[in-house]
Structure formats: C-alpha cells, structure tokens
C-alpha cells in the first residue's frame, strides 16, 4: 500500500483512478444523509451529461483547499459537462460556474449518483 501511495504521489499512476476505498488517506463524511449508503464512485466515473452529489473530498493541502474554495462542498450537486477532446481534463458545472479539472484531481472527489 505504501508503494501505491508513493507512485500516485510521484504522478506515475494511471490517469483514471478507480476508487477502491483502500489505501487512501482518511476522508471526511459530509453531514447529509445522501452519503449514508456506501458507494465508492468518484467524479471520474460520471458520464458526460450526468449529475451527481458530492459526498466527500479526499486529498489535502492546496488541492483540497482550492476545490473547497471553488465550491466543491459536500452535499452540493455537480454536473459532468464534457470531456476534453483527449478525455482529460473534464468540465463540470457547479451551480452557475463551469470548472475544469484534471482527472487526477477529480479522483479526489467522491460522489453518489443523484
């Protein structure tokens, strides 16, 4: 497990991170009832045009802070708008704003299907 975390940190992991819920740093649950049912999907698993609700954020430091500042707060609804022509990054709609994220950052956001 150490290795996995290490290589992901080194940026050697595959772009598409599957949330298996193991070997991750501690995440925080949101207050909402929406997240009661455990269902390990992250933003990367959402198809274009679909909407979902944010359960929690993984990761720490500046990435996490930036995501929170942009409004990726537990409980909010996010719509996956489209992929870039080369599949990465992705465009999301959060309220009235359109935000672009790399898939590596999107993997930090755990969601449930709305």
């Amino acid at each position, binding site marked *: 497990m150490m*290795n996995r975390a290490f290589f992901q940190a080194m940026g050697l992991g595959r772009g598409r991170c599957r949330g298996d819920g193991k070997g991750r740093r501690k995440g925080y649950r949101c207050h909402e009832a929406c997240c009661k049912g455990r269902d390990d999907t992250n933003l990367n698993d959402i198809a274009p045009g679909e909407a979902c609700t944010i359960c929690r954020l993984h990761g720490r430091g500046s990435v996490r802070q930036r995501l929170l500042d942009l409004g990726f707060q537990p409980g909010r609804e996010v719509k996956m708008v489209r992929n870039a022509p080369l599949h990465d990054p992705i465009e999301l709609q959060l309220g009235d704003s359109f935000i*672009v994220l*790399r898939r590596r950052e999107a993997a930090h956001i755990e969601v449930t299907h709305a």
Partner: protein
Amino acid sequence: MPEGAPWLVALAGQQNAGKSTLFNMLTGLQQHIANYPGVTVDKKSGSYPADGQRYEVVDLPGCYSLAAFSLEERVARAFLLEDRPDVVVNVIDATNLRRSLPLTFQLLEMGFKVVIALNMMDAAERRGLEIDIAHLERRLCVPVIPVVGRKGKGEAELRAAIAKAATTDHVTPATLNYGALEEDVARFQGKLAAEPALQDVSARWLSVKLLESDSEAEALLGTRLPNPHGILDEVYTARKTFEKRHGLSSGDHVSYCRDRHAAAIIEASITDTKAGQVPVSERIDRVLLNRFAAPIFLMATVWAIYQLSIVQGYELTKVTWPFLAGFRNFAAGILPDAGFLTDPQIRSLGLWIVDSINTLLNYVPIFLILFALIAILEDSGYMARIAFILDRILHRFGLHGQSTLPFILAGVFAGGCAVPGVMATKGIPDARARLATILTVPFMNCMAKIPLYTLLINIYFPETKGLMLFYLSTITVVVAMLVAKLLTSSVLRNEETAPFVMELPSYHLPTIPGVLRRSFDRTWLYIKKVGTVVVAIAVVIYVLLQFPGVPAARQVAYHAEAEAAIAQFYEALEGNPHRLAVEDPARLIDLINVQSAYRAARLNAGGKEAVQAMDADLAEAHPDFVPFVLRGRDADAKAANQALRTLTNQRTTLRREMRSDRIEASFLGHIGRGLEPVTQFADFDWKINIALLASFAARESAVSTLGVLFDQDDGENRSLEDRMGAQQSSEGRTAVSAVALMLFFALYPPCLATVIMVRVQTASTGWMMFSIIFPTLLGLTVASAVYSGATALGLTGLQTMSTVWFAALGLLLVVALPKPWLPDLLAGRSREPAQ
C-alpha cells in the same frame, strides 16, 4: 489620518471578477506596475483625487480565499495585514455570488471597512438573475454598489461609497456564526484579544485561522508572542476534539459554514428567472469544445493569429521601416562626419546603437497586432478553452494547459519573439510547469532565427527549401517538449506544482479600448525592458568587436592604398573644371559624406517628387558638388561622377577589408578562434563562432556579421549566398555542416533580451544562467553528434536532417505515449527489497 495623506484602497476579488477593469476605471492612466517584495507577482497601484483627497488604489492578486496555500493569496494576505488599507473594495462577479461571498466574509472578519462592487451586472441581467441589492446590504452590513466595469457604469456611486467608507469610524462586526465550532472560535477570540502584541490583528479572524490550522497564522503567533505554545496547544486540542466529535476537520467545517452562509444569503436575495435554461456560453461551447470540432477551431484560431500578426505585421513593417531608416539617417547627420578610411569612434558607436534599436523597433507593428489578438483571446474567454483542449498533451511533458499562449507568442510557426513569450508565462499557476515553460519557450523559432535559416537553406538546399523549413520549424517544438519533460523530471522535480483547476469564464465580447490598452501596455513594456538592455549590450559587443583594432602593419598598408586611390581620383579629374570644388582634401571628405548621405536618403525616398526635392536641396546646399553626386549631362560632369564612383567603390572595399581584419583581431575574434577546438566537432570555424557569439546580443546580427566576414573581392557584386557557398565549399564544408549549424542555431540559448526577461520572471540569476548554459551545451552536443555521425555514415544533408527529425519524433512518441508497463515495472522493482 492626517489631512492630506492619501487613503489606501485595496481591490480584492477573484480572478475573473473584473478587478483590473475596475482598477483602470478608478485610476485611469495614473498607475504603475511593480513587484511585491521578493516575489514575481505584479503589484498594480495607482491613484485618483476626489474632494481634495488622494486615494491610493492597489490591485491585489486574484484570490478565492485567504488561505496560505497559493502564492497570490499569501501575497494578498500579507498586504492586507501589513499595509492595513483604509478601505477594501471587494470586487464580485454578480453571476457568481455564491463562490465569491466566502472571501467577503473573511475580509469582514479581518475587520476591514468593505465596499462591495457587484460587477458584471449586465451579464447577471442577461443570465436572468434578479438581485435584491438592498437585501444583500442588510445581510452583509456593507454598501453594495452595482457596477458594469466594462462600460463604466456605477463609477460615481463606487467612488462615493469609497469616500464615505474611508471617513466613517464604524467597523462592521463579523456576522458569520460557525455553529458547532462557534464556542471554540469565541473562546480563542477572547484570549487573542487580550494579548497586547496582537492588537492590530482581528482576534476573531486569527482565532478562525488557527482553528483552520493555517500555517501562516501559526507563524504570526510565533513571531508576535514570546511563548505561543500555550495557545497553539489549546487550539490543537480543540481541533482534535472537534474532529473526533463531528467526524469532520474544523477547517472543513469553517469552509462549509461559509459556503452555507453564502447559499442562505443568496437564496433570500437572488431570483433566478431563467433557472434550468442552458447559458449562452455553454451553447457556444457545445460547438467550440465538441470533441471533433475543437481541434479544428483551435488550429484555425492559431493559423489566423499567425496570418494576421506575423504575415500581415511583416507587411506593415515595410511601411514603418522608412521611418526607422530616416531616424538612422538623421542620427548619421548629427554625429561627427565620417573619415575616408576610419570613422570617429563616437560616430561608429552611435550608429551601432541606432542600428540595434532599429532592429528592435522594427518588430513593434507585429507586436501591436499580436498582443491585440492575444488580448481578444483572453478577454473573450477562449484562451481558457485552449488550455482545456491542450492540457492533456502539454501535461504529458510536464507543462500546463496555459503554456500554450507563451509558445504561440514565441513562434510555434516560425516567427514570434521569446520576450513576450516568457512574459506571458505569468499566468501559469503551477510553479514547475511555469519554469519549464520559461526555459523551453526560447527554443521556438523567433523571427530573428529565420534569416540564418533562409541563408543556409538557399546555399545548401535550394531544391528542398520547403521541406527543410518544415523540418526546422517543427523540430524546435519537438525538442522543446522533450526538454520540458527532461527538466521537469530532473532539475525541476522538486519545484512546487499546482493542480489544474480552472474556471471556464463565460464568453464576453472584448471591448476595443480594453484590447488596445492591453496591446499598447505590453508592447511598451517590451520596448522599455528590452530597449535599455539592448543598448547596454550593444555597447559591450561593439567594444569587443572594435578593439584592439587593426594591426599596425596592416593599417599602414591600408593607408597607402587609400592614398593611391585618392591620387588616382585627382588624376582622373586632371583638366576637369569641377576639380576646383575638391582641390582641398578636406573638401573631398565632405563630398564623400554628402554623397553617402544623399544615397542613404534616396534609398528611403518614396516617389519621384521626393527625389526631385532632394536634388533641389542638394543643389542649394552644395552647388559645386552637384556634378559629382548627380549624374550630369556634359562630358566633364560625367567624368567627375565616374571618378567619384570609382573612388567610393574602392573606399567601400578598403573599409570592408579593414573591418574584417578588425573583427579577426578583435577580442571576440580571439574568443572565436579560442573556441575552435571545441566547436570543430560540429564543424564551426572561427567565423561562425564569432557570428554565433555576436548573435547573442540580437539574433539578427548573425547574418550581418557573416556578411562582413565572408567579404567579397573587388568590384564583385555577388550575394552573400554565393560568397559564403564558394568560400565554404573550398574549405570542404558540406550540407551536413549547414545542418549542424542550423540545429545549433535552433537550440541556441535565448538572446540577451530574453535572458533578461527570464531573470525578471524567475527572479533568479541562477535560472538565468541555466537558460544560457543548458541550451549551449545541448546545441553543441546535438550539432557535434549530428555532424560526426552523419560524416561517419556518409549521409547527405537532407538525409541527415530527415534522420534527425524522425529520431526526435520517435523519441517524442516514446515519451508521450502511455506506458502502462512502467508503473508495474517500477513497483515490482521497489517491492522486491521489501519482501
């Protein structure tokens, strides 16, 4: 505050909220740009008068919040804490209130007198948002002024609100309640407020920051208090307790509370009349960002930029060049007159400097167009989309989606300039990608590299010009990507990186004043920063090329030849009535100078009338020189004209020979010869070494230095291509040598202006040195390897170039394509010792 001292006003807000527009609206033309101490973040400040008071306005860097994570936010925060502005104008994008309010809450918590400028009200209206301003004011307890910065709407109201806020004593109390954390916040607020050393900092704000485990707040406590550990430990315990009880870190809770509070305020003050409708921008994006259409639109955009700025701009320089040439002639007229063989030092130096400045100014039309187009791309919102489309490719090489703009500016398609390219890296939020971009942008083919390519291609590859140019203009991009990958995985590995998280702004129609302003500002910055440097360096290179001068023995020989030529001239005029005009040798020098000034002016004159006017001027000023300078009718005048022509031709030849001797004997010449043992592997002789050294000051000079060094014999009027080709082939140089030279030139270090810009943008002399040394070594290695390899294999020039190109492309693909086996391989290797 004493009467007369200016009020300090800070503009705070998020990146796309239109702070700069409001800043321009408030301060007009009275502004200047500096750097915040120790960092490369721009500090824009300006001022305006109102009612006998001055208002000093500072535009803070864009920030979403005041956390300690990003450089911009740290800078903004340090300014707020240390300079304590009297009024903070919080600029908010009216279409995006929910994300903007958390920053407002933090500003209020810090105890500032806040005025909210609710910008882009027109966009909000179009979007169908009805905003209840009065309700917002009531909820936030601060004045909220609706403005439309791009149209100057609401300006007077905003100024009035700032003036009113500056003079009131009342400081709005914070209104945000932190729910479950409120008890802790209040407890520490009380403790901090009791500390005499912390009186200038808002206790509530500091208390919240500490609970958010903000490193800078902890550091502040450390510097202010003799023993901060008591409070820090208590805060730590409080955080841990909260986390255990609520399953949520206190920092997340604070952020959550702000977001919820913002949502609550918005729910009560905004009515969305078009809820559920797809915004116009999104409709446009459905086409422009369509998976298949996006690359086509992108290519079309870049092509249009290239056509309009580089191709059309080049046409425009033909119109502006005569003005610069006129400037040179004007300077030539003012400076002391030229001698027959040698000129006064002050004249040569003056003209050398003027030439250097002209080379620089010649590109101004191109830059004006280029920067205007870039401003349109930025203001319209398409630039962010370009980053979105290309990030995947660029990120593979350690770069960033926003590296696109610098590369375009520096000349992806052969013809740009690295100086604005390096300047444009400012916007890249990822420090590692930014440095990698700065260091690879100079590999692009700037406009000044083109003349040497054309020269060599015309000599060695007359049949395959197009293909060679294609190879050269693409290989630089390939090399830049490879170098970026190499640097980011070696020397830059430990630099800070940032995630690619970016907002796609709505499309806006750019305004003409906005675009023009940006275009002029950036061009002016280029002229100012580069101009001073180029003049200084021009002087250094001049000294290196001029001294110690022509050896004494050669000098004597030249003087003898000159005297012979002059004697021949008088002999030819024997019995000619016009001879009287030049009986005195001093007059002869005058005549020669008048003639060369006339020739230079005539080259620059447009149309028949202008030439006639010049002739009339000449006849008036120097009636006795007319038969020599102008082609006369009678036999005597013809003879006089012919004699002068012969003399000036001889003079030109002598002077060119002397210049060649001088360069060979000069310091730079010695350096060029001294480098031969190293450069011989790439087949560069001392002449090419000198040209390459001189081109460090300005790339254009490579060709002109070569022009001097490959001088022509008497009376021959062959082009530089012919001369160089003949001389080079007699020395056994082949097309392979040319390929090595062109590759070296493609990888050659940035010119001095760029190097200075690298210094400015990285704020580090170390990186500046690196940007010189690394490309030199790389270029020399590649050139030597290619030359030695191709000679050993007996390849032709074209075969060599093709081989190099395909090899580079192959390497690029190996680096770029996904390597699913690599992580497994690495993981397997590192797991072994553990078992």
